[in-house]
């Protein structure tokens, strides 16, 4: 197996923080931890090339570095790309994970990295990559590399990767079903009795943590603001011209209301399977309150009701999809000069 390995300046033996601006340097063969990695991967495995770059360089010139690494891995005809392990080094972790993701998606070969769960690279890339939990302690290098090697070998041989606790990687957040001995009812009671009596219990699911979204500054003067209505309640013109799906919608629509003071039920329908839509179908203003906002516009409370309302169906949507829809809608509103948005949901 041919391997390309990425290291930062420190693990690549080029120096500490003073060498963090170091431009990429290519070395044939294994360097530093790479020698151990070669040992744990077995005698048929060779690190054919090591790419070393400074942490600052990687963080600031990620695009150039990515291009270089992908090209090198391709040229080396590598079967595997390994980056790190990075432990708690944040810049290193971010770069290593980004490189792994790029190699994986562009070349389709297995990639593995390792870092501590607190490393910022984990939050951003855990869903896409096998990131072995390295912990914070660099002296565990051999053990960490062994785990990375085991995961890499399995990936290269197209074997199933087991559970995170068994394989030593950080959970990617992908759900896999298994049939188990006990019914859900039995598990519920067992867990509840333990919890109620103060004994330890293990939840079958731990909700992922999400970063808080900072609130923007308040609208300085609403009477001068352009206000748009955005809804995930699925209101669309009759015939659903953009074919917005009633659940797991992958698109949104912007619909002209510049000539309207009031939305009439005959002109609209609802593409959403998650709520009792009758009341909105009777009077769409209940979801997209054009009537009230026109009044507010006329009385000068709001400056201008934006010429279009934006709609999608917010039901059973994968978060990755929701994030994209949100970004697209925000970009469009920004471009249209909208100052404030009223979001209505169902």
């Amino acid at each position, binding site marked *: 197996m041919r391997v390309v390995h990425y290291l930062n300046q420190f693990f690549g033996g080029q120096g500490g923080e003073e060498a963090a601006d170091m431009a990429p340097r290519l070395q044939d063969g294994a360097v530093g931890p790479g020698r151990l990695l070669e040992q744990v991967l077995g005698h048929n495995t060779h690190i054919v090339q090591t790419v070393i770059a400074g942490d600052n360089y990687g963080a600031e010139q990620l695009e150039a570095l990515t291009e270089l690494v992908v090209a090198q891995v391709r040229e080396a005809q590598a079967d595997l790309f390994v980056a790190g392990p990075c432990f708690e080094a944040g810049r290193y972790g971010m770069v290593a994970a980004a490189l792994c993701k790029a190699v994986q998606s562009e070349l389709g070969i297995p990639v593995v990295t390792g870092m501590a769960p607190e490393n910022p690279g984990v939050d951003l890339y855990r*869903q896409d990559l096998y990131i072995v939990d390295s912990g914070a302690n660099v002296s565990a290098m051999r053990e960490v590399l062994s785990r990375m090697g085991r995961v890499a070998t399995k990936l290269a041989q197209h074997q199933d990767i087991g559970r995170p606790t068994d394989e030593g990687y950080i959970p990617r957040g992908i759900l896999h*079903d298994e049939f188990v001995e006990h019914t*859900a009812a039995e598990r*519920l009671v067992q867990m509840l009795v333990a919890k109620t009596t103060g004994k330890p219990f293990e*939840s079958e*699911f731990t909700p992922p943590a999400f970063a808080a979204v900072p609130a923007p500054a308040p609208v300085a003067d609403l009477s001068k603001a352009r206000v748009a209505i955005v809804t995930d309640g699925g209101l669309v013109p009759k015939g659903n011209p953009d074919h917005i799906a009633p659940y797991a919608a992958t698109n949104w629509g912007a619909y002209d209301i510049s000539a309207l003071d009031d939305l009439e039920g005959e002109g609209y329908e609802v593409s959403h399977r*998650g709520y009792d839509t009758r009341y909105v179908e009777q009077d769409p203003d209940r979801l997209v309150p054009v009537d009230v906002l026109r009044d507010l516009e006329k009385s000068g409370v709001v400056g201008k009701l934006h010429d279009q309302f934006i709609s999608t169906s917010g039901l059973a949507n994968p978060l990755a999809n929701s994030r994209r829809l949100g970004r697209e809608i925000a970009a469009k509103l920004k471009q249209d000069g909208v100052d404030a948005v009223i979001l209505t949901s169902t």
Partner: protein
Amino acid sequence: MRLTLAYHAVSDMSFGDTTQLHGSSLSIDQEALRQHLLADRRLVSVDFHIVHPGDSCRFGVVFDILEPRAKQPEDGPNFPGILGPIEMVGQGFTHVLRGVAVTVLDEGAPLAGGKLVDMSGAAGDACPYASLSHLVVVPHLGPGLERHTALHALRLASVRAAVHLAGAAVGQPVATTEVFDTPGPVVAGREALPRIAYIGQIHSRQRVAEVDEQIFYGANTVGMVPVLLHPNEWLDGAVVISHSSRGVETYFYQNHPVITELYRWHRDGEITLVGTIATMAASDNDDRARNCMLAAQQAKWALAADGVILTKYGGGAPHADMALTARMCEALGIRTTVQVEDMSRDRRAESSQLFNYAEVDAIVHVGGNDTQWAVPAVERAIGGTLEAAAALGASQRLDAARLCGVVNQQGASRLRSFVY
């Protein structure tokens, strides 16, 4: 309240001249049962099929699955509010045909996504209903019926058929009985044990219940707030599933996995089962706040529960309502566990959760979106229509959620989701 279930094990079910139970052999007089069901003039005809475990057979779309049961005549009505007068159930003697199910198909339901049972192969191994013998009932409805009227006719046919069949057991010798007995929230001599309750949703108002949609003692639950129920009432016909039956069958009310498991722990002297609360998922915020609050308050002030188990009915909004109820229980000092399924479409934990309350930290996750089977063609397929039967019988991919009992909201699932 004390309920005795008299189990009559049925090892052999066949059509015959009379409906009777001989030892463990049940024979069914089709014609008598047909006339019994056709008393409902909305039905123009009805077909019956007998299916056994291991048969190369698939059937759907399932309207409901019931266990044939009949009350000892003086001990209360069968399915009060639907079949019988509205009187309390959950006490006295109820005869049960064990190992048998009455499964009613819905000829008016679209096959795509419709619920079914597969009796053999890998899918059959996963389906808790595949180990039962089924009397599959296929009612054919007259033309021009509104959908809810047709569904009400199916409901009536389902309970009539189940009770009629179990009538064969009344008066027969009983080999096995099981007693379900808890006096309710006040139990002397068990003060040291944790007091456990169950809060189960029985409908979701995302879909408005029809006027003739009989769910709870015959009522459609519109306008209803959470209500205290003795555990035995669930087991004995007070509740049936609504017309939206995602992940639920009446069979698992009659054999409620959570309630029967709580009874097991109760009998073992590990807990005290103090009661249950039936609630509804809401379709608007006020309804949601009210239902969740009242359910939690009843668990606290009427049942004095130390812990509750919560399950949902339906999809996403019920999921969130269940979690909010659990959160309110926790705020009142009641510990909780909740059952969730995988609500994501990308099998990502982050899309699956629908709630994130630090105190709702004991979660049983039955997954469901990662399980499919490639099933072969079967020798026998039973559908509401010939087209449905033909499509059902072909080799195809089956998602777990379509197979009755696999991703079950009542606690029957042996499926578990692991986060990778």
